């Protein structure tokens, strides 16, 4: 049978996410590249006690109302809806203390756990999870709070931390174009963590601007091979960035 991974709606694509699931989110935060409709659909769906793995829980658009057609919808809407138990993130809250942050408030109230991870280590841990690597040594974080409880190893006179792979039950990916087999392209800096998380989950769900037939994407342009993708949903022509 021809492979066809297209789902009819965002609601259908996230319907089976159970309570307690781990979800990787590929968007960098702040601007484009966020799987906004999938995140919004997950809020509607209501699964609780989720672990979110991604760069951020919400950046400087955090304070705006969720107005379809206007703004990026970031994972903070799941925090507000009390669906998050734990976050594994690099830039969990906005840099400026003056910008409100749903995650910061929930964290201070003790409602969510946080494992903070340097951005490069986060990307590399997710890649390791996808690539069957059991762990790796990185110089990042040596001598900082990130090193607490971790093995330090001196290799060629330099100190490294042992970091472990990350995988998730689901990945939410924002891409530009997909073919029905799941091959994906991206635009510009909206790649960010998207192609990385796409490879590291049991179920990878993608929202795209356009769905085409196999062969309509130049093979040399494909960034994520279809083998990594399980569900594809078409975004409405306009909407959340």
């Amino acid at each position: 049978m021809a492979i066809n991974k297209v789902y009819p709606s965002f609601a259908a694509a996230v319907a089976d996410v159970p309570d307690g699931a781990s979800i990787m989110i590929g968007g960098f935060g702040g601007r484009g590249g966020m799987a906004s409709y999938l995140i919004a659909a997950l809020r509607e769906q209501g699964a609780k006690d989720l672990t979110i793995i991604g760069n951020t829980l919400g950046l400087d658009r955090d304070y705006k109302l969720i107005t379809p057609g206007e703004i990026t919808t970031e994972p903070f809407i799941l925090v507000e809806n009390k669906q998050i138990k734990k976050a594994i993130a690099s830039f969990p809250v906005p840099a400026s203390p003056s910008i409100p942050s749903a995650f910061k408030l929930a964290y201070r109230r003790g409602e969510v756990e946080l494992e903070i991870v340097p951005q490069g280590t986060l990307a590399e841990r997710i890649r390791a999870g996808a690539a069957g690597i059991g762990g790796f040594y990185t110089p990042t974080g040596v001598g900082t709070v990130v090193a607490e409880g971790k093995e330090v190893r001196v290799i060629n006179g330099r100190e490294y931390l042992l970091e472990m792979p990350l995988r998730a039950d689901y990945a939410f990916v924002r891409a530009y174009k997909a073919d029905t087999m799941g091959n994906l392209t991206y635009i510009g800096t909206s790649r960010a963590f998207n192609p990385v998380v796409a490879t590291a989950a049991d179920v990878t769900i993608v929202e795209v601007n356009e769905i085409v037939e196999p062969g309509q994407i130049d093979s040399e342009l494909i960034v994520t091979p279809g083998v990594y993708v399980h569900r594809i949903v078409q975004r409405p022509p306009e909407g959340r960035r």
Partner: protein
Amino acid sequence: MKERLDRETIAMRVAREFQDGFVVNLGIGIPTLASNYIPEGRTVLFQTENGGLGFGPIVPEEEGDPDFVNASADYVTPLPGMSFFHSADSFAMIRGGHIDITVLGGLQVSQKGDLANWMLPERGIGSIGGAMDLAVGAKRVIVAMEHTTKSGGPKIVKECTYPLTAKECVKLIVTDMAVIEVAGGGLVLLEHAPGFSVEEIQAVTESTLKISPTLKEIEL
């Protein structure tokens, strides 16, 4: 005239460090402004850890495209020869030593070049982002920041008391009062802002400054 440098002027001074052909990554805040002041005749490739290399100046908010942004979420200008890559490849580039200079903001810098720039302890939560990887991976780390805290306390200290970003990583500090090199386990005052004396700078610097034999006024 004696006035602390404004953020744009600090960024201009920082940009003088960018040599022709350098690959440069700029952190959030003052560092990002440096992309607007590349010295004439030099080609500088800006890398952004969200996955871009070779972009141009920052674009005004109302003209931006959300698919072309830097890690500070500023809209940037696509340039010919710009390339894109995902976060794992981006940090392979950073950790692997392919960034000539990174310019980071700072909360505290110690006399050994330790950097603390991601968390004020009293806030209880902070964001690391790419700072730890950049501090460890770039060939040269420059910190651009105000010389003192908002209440006038020193940010250049004997030992950092805030959570560290990385140890012994900073090579140059550019502030609104001075340009200071980290060398031989201590700090050397290279340049001062117009009108500021060595004593005035030392008074707001916790670490003892050595004075460069070629000490001069900051040139832009």
